[in-house]
């Protein structure tokens, strides 16, 4: 297992590419702008994007299973609205968090059930879920709601001191715990492996006796849960509920997955990837902020280019792998066959 970590292979090269990009981007920023290379600028990447890391990690599971979840951004907005309005009714913070998570899980279960039971396409089902969640948040209120709950305020303000004068927020801790749990869960639980198997081949998974339908339902429920958790973390961050929050963020989550090496065709990717992808886009944002004169749309342009680049790289790797397969085909069986040349002759004489 140690050798797996030490070696660059087809499987992890995209992660290394993302890491390299991270270093290059950060290096370029540090070189160009004074103050860019500071601990806090780096930590802020996590603080500002904690919610996105969580949502993208949930999205990664769905993509690996061969599906997609377009509802994530709407669920974040809905959760922020529900939290806002519940607090207006004077609800307790604990109840609000539980209700939020329950909403996410329910949405996910609904998606998963429709997709697995009626063999519907995940794009369509989660698109419907996206409209539904966004619609419900408008129904609650079209105005933004300010959250003034003391617990939420405290969490929002709390700074965990690191060495020196660097600090992170509680949200960052939640995000990191999620990522670590995701990495372990994907590798060491039967559920995690079933998701990969499903993304590899649904038919084979069925024939090998995996609970295909249950896995599909669970993976969307997981994504719903992660979206809701992301929503809670986002509410910590903004302390407001608004039905227009994060319009189009589902695409940012998908982009982070792609940059982080999660193959959109399913079945492949490391769960550390989405976080790296989020940090990458975060650095680009920070770079443009430091530059000062460019409009923030340049972030989108840069991410667009990056996506093209990364998808091309992924495709190249897959193509190379296919070519490698035929090569090993000739080498490996032939090696064992050299022990029995006599029988090879025999078939020639038949």
């Amino acid at each position: 297992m140690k050798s797996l970590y030490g070696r660059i292979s087809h499987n992890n090269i995209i992660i290394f590419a993302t890491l390299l990009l991270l270093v290059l981007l950060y290096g370029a920023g540090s070189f160009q702008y004074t103050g860019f290379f500071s601990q806090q600028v780096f930590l802020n990447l996590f603080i500002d994007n904690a919610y996105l890391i969580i949502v993208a990690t949930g999205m990664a599971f769905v993509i690996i299973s061969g599906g997609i979840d377009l509802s994530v951004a709407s669920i974040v907005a809905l959760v922020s609205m529900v939290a806002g309005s519940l607090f207006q009714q004077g609800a307790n913070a604990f109840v609000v968090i539980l209700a939020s998570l329950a909403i996410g899980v329910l949405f996910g279960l609904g998606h998963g059930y429709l997709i697995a039971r009626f063999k519907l396409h995940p794009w369509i089902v989660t698109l419907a879920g996206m409209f539904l969640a966004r619609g419900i948040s408008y129904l609650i209120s079209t105005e933004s709601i300010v959250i003034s709950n003391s617990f939420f305020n405290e969490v929002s303000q709390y700074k965990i001191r690191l060495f020196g004068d660097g600090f992170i927020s509680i949200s960052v801790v939640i995000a990191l715990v999620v990522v670590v749990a995701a990495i372990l869960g994907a590798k060491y639980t039967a559920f995690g492996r079933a998701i990969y198997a499903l993304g590899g081949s649904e038919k084979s998974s069925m024939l090998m006796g995996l609970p295909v339908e249950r896995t599909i339902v669970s993976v969307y429920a997981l994504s719903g849960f992660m979206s809701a958790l992301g929503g809670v973390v986002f509410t910590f961050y903004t302390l407001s509920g608004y039905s227009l929050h994060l319009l189009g963020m589902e695409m940012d989550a998908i982009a982070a997955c792609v940059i982080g090496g999660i193959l959109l065709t399913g079945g492949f990717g490391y769960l550390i990837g989405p976080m790296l992808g989020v940090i990458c886009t975060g650095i680009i944002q920070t770079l443009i902020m430091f530059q000062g004169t460019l409009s923030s749309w340049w972030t989108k342009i840069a991410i667009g280019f990056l996506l093209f680049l990364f998808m091309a790289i992924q495709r190249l790797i897959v193509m190379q792998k296919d070519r490698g397969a035929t090569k090993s085909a000739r080498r490996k069986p032939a090696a064992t066959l050299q022990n029995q040349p006599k029988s090879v002759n025999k078939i020639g004489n038949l």
Partner: protein
Amino acid sequence: MDTGQLLRAQGISKSFPGVQALSKVDFTLRRGEIHALMGENGAGKSTLIKALTGVYEKDAGMVWMNGREIHPKSPLQAQDMGISTVYQEVNLCPNLTVAENIFIGRYPRKRMLIDWETMNRRSQELLERLDLYIDVKQSLSSYSVAVQQMVAIARAVDISNGVLILDEPTSSLDTNEVKQLFAVMRKLRNEGLGIIFVTHFLDQVYEITDRITVLRNGKLVGEFETEQLPRTQLVSHMIGREWNPDDAAGSKQARKGENQPFVIAKGLAKRGSIEPIDLTIHRGEVLGLAGLLGSGRTEVAKLIFGIDKPDEGEFTIDNAMMSSMYPRKAIQQGFGFTPEDRKVAGIVGELSIRENIVLALQAREGLFKALSVRKQKEIADHYIQLLRIKTPSSEQKIENLSGGNQQKVILARWLATQPKLLILDEPTRGIDVGSKLEIRKLILELAGQGISVLFISAELEEMVQCCDRVVVLRDKNPIGELAGADMTEDRIMHMIAEGGLTHDQTGGIGA
């Protein structure tokens, strides 16, 4: 109950709407034997396997395993009872590692979590037992189909509790890979496993199996000791003995003077589907391709029509070298192709006879030169009359016609394009005797008009009757050619069964 018996099936019947796929078939598998299940397509081999493994529910009959009656309802249940099956196409997840594919769904665990080290170690041991030395931590897709097939077998062996069914596992393997698979099969047999082996390759049957069960038309022909069954007899058991060359429907007309080659293929080959083959088709000649199913008959036809692309070889039409072939170009060159399975690849069931007939003509003319409906009708009526297609009108939906008449419509489709070469892949399969004779007659008439025909049929009688020359294929290799007086059913059968014989020099059974 006999102690050697591992799996016993008695009186298995299964019917599908309109077809009796299996009727009262008995089958016995002993411990430590490799048992071939043979028969032409549609003989009921796969139906029997599916009835045994619970994919289909059998209409009648009983199955015992180790003396206990079993009723598997799904492949999964059959697996739990100890019957595991490896299908022709690999049913594994290519993105997972080799070890995972072997252990998925039944991971070894340590403190609730998957124990990768144990899993990798046990996979390695399992594969080494099958003489496969690969890195189990690599993803499955990084290995060849042969290795993947082997991994599927390893998984099946590990799950299986005595019975292993291999359904055409060798069709995508090359000679060396087959060798390796056989070594593994022998090893497993010696360990006491009972293996059911389905294949179309006679050589493989005689190389590896102990006994053979032959099915024909859903009925049991018999169970034989492999060593005591000569190949010719096996072949005649498989295709049946009803072929007496007595009816004389149509006769070969003298077609002299037309001896110029039209299509010449030199060393045409595609890895995994056909070994290099030389073919010359003269003008007005009926050239037959004989051989069992899977011998490469259809593959040759597909290469010539450009459906599959050859890996090597030269191809000339009228002395003009063709750098590449694709169906559109083939049609422009005056080729026509009636595929083996007309239901799937031939007719467009929802369209009328008229529309089906003008399809190829319209395709050749291009989309912008629309044929008027009146013109289309004229063409359709002409061929309905010419080919004696039995239908009330040309506007009838083609799917309402009988098989023979559908086949005639497809022939009409190509005749309407005034073809120079017709490739007919099993044009008479599954149609009644009368229509068969008419189609044969038609083929001879067409040849008389100077159209070249490449004729593929499983019925040797038909081949002998229609063809001027017959090229015999076996196991994806051309093994010889017969013409004139040499061309008899017995000779063809002999060649299919025994190999090249007098044509040894041409018979590169390419190892």
